């Protein structure tokens, strides 16, 4: 009940915040001196990347850990991890797409072998691997255990991939807000819109995960009801025959 109320509140709130972000980003904030209107992608691309690489990956890793931990083992955590990864894949692909659209006017190419781009693409394939692993027919707890181990292995691999490709070669700009000097290199209104975009897209992610989790829970319930009905039918047949 409380979960449904939360989901029903977060959905409209996320929609309103995304709409406000779009209005501020497209209408109110000024264009950039060097990049012109292309800078408006800053209200979309970093927020998508934040959710994809940190929130979704982090959530799937934490839920997988909670599933593997005997005291907290529950298929609910498995379903939550899977929901986070499914929505995370959408965010990761959108991150790559918006990055590519932004890269064309600024770097002159749709794709370049940059450290950040390459590591994000590798992580996207890892997430797709997780979804492929979940589609292997197996008993629920066996599948949950394999998926949880893979999610944690993928999470451990994140820093290895991250640093190896950074040492390889890089072109992507550094952090604008959370830079080493902790001095945001962005104008006030633009900074607030950027911050709002992070909140809006994080809330949108939370709502999508909740909806996906609910769908999965209902599917499992339906399977159980279906199984119970099938057993009852067989028992009834046994009585009549």
């Amino acid at each position, binding site marked *: 009940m409380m979960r449904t109320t939360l989901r029903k509140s977060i959905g409209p709130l996320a929609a309103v915040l995304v709409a406000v972000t779009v209005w501020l980003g497209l209408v109110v904030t000024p264009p950039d001196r060097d990049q012109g209107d292309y800078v408006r992608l800053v209200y979309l691309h970093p927020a998508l990347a934040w959710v994809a690489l940190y929130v979704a990956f982090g959530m799937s890793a934490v839920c997988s850990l909670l599933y593997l931990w005997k005291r907290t083992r529950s298929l609910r955590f498995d379903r939550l991890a899977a929901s986070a990864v499914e929505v995370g894949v959408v965010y990761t692909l959108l991150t790559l797409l918006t990055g590519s659209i932004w890269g064309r006017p600024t770097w002159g190419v749709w794709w370049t072998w940059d450290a950040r781009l390459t590591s994000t693409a590798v992580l996207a394939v890892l997430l797709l691997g997780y979804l492929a*692993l979940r589609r292997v027919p197996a008993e629920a707890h066996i599948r949950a255990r394999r998926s949880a181990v893979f999610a944690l*292995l993928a999470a451990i691999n994140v820093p290895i991939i991250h640093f190896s490709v950074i*040492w390889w070669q890089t072109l992507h700009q550094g952090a604008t807000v959370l830079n080493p000097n902790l001095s945001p290199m962005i104008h006030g209104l633009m900074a607030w819109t950027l911050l709002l975009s992070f909140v809006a897209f994080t809330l949108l992610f939370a709502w999508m995960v909740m909806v996906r989790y609910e769908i999965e829970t209902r599917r499992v319930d339906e399977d159980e009801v279906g199984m119970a009905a099938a057993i009852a039918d067989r028992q009834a047949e046994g009585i009549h025959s």
Partner: protein
Amino acid sequence: MGEQCSPWFQVVEWVVVMWRDALLIARRDLTIELRSKVGIWQILPFGLMALFLFAFALGPQTELLRTAAPGLFWLAVLFSSILAAQRSLNIEGSAATREANRLLGLDPAGVFLGKAAAMAVELLVLEVVLLVGVMLLFHVTIASWLFVVPALVLPGLGLSAAGVLYGSLAGGASTRSTLLPILVLPVEAPVLIAASKSLSRGFGAVTPDAGRWLVVLAIFAVVYSVLGVALYGPLEES
């Protein structure tokens, strides 16, 4: 009344048993490979064929082939390692083998280490043969054995550990053949980069960070060996 063993003694005993089992499994896997000759007649020709195809794709320009040689060498090894991992886990895949392992009381960590060690030996043989192939076909010479030897050994250890671990994750033989490459290739991307950089230094190219790439390879091998020891047992139970 039973004698109480100190925790240190128990750890040492576990390590001894694990390595004894590892040696047993490695010897068994290598004996099976020597008898069946699948590695020699299937995996090795596949690696060599991959080298030929890479050369066909690039054309006969000597300088281009020389520059691309380390990366193409490791791509050939990487693809061959998928076949080797599938082969290694097919041996373990049958219900009778699993039952025999359980009846013999083999430590799963030892089984993992044994399988990874046997696969590492197979990969090392493959790497040596492909190295000769690369030297002949791509016109490269060895400038520094100091970089070539660790650049062959460390990736072999890492690829074997990751291959066996992800192979056990990928489930039965029916799904493993298509699922394993998707699961393991993204994970092995750092090995491809680091091994190519280290080997290009061994071939005489100017690679300032070659030492650091060797450290990446060592970290990868250690991390996946430790993870395999910890996780192989629970995964095999499932």
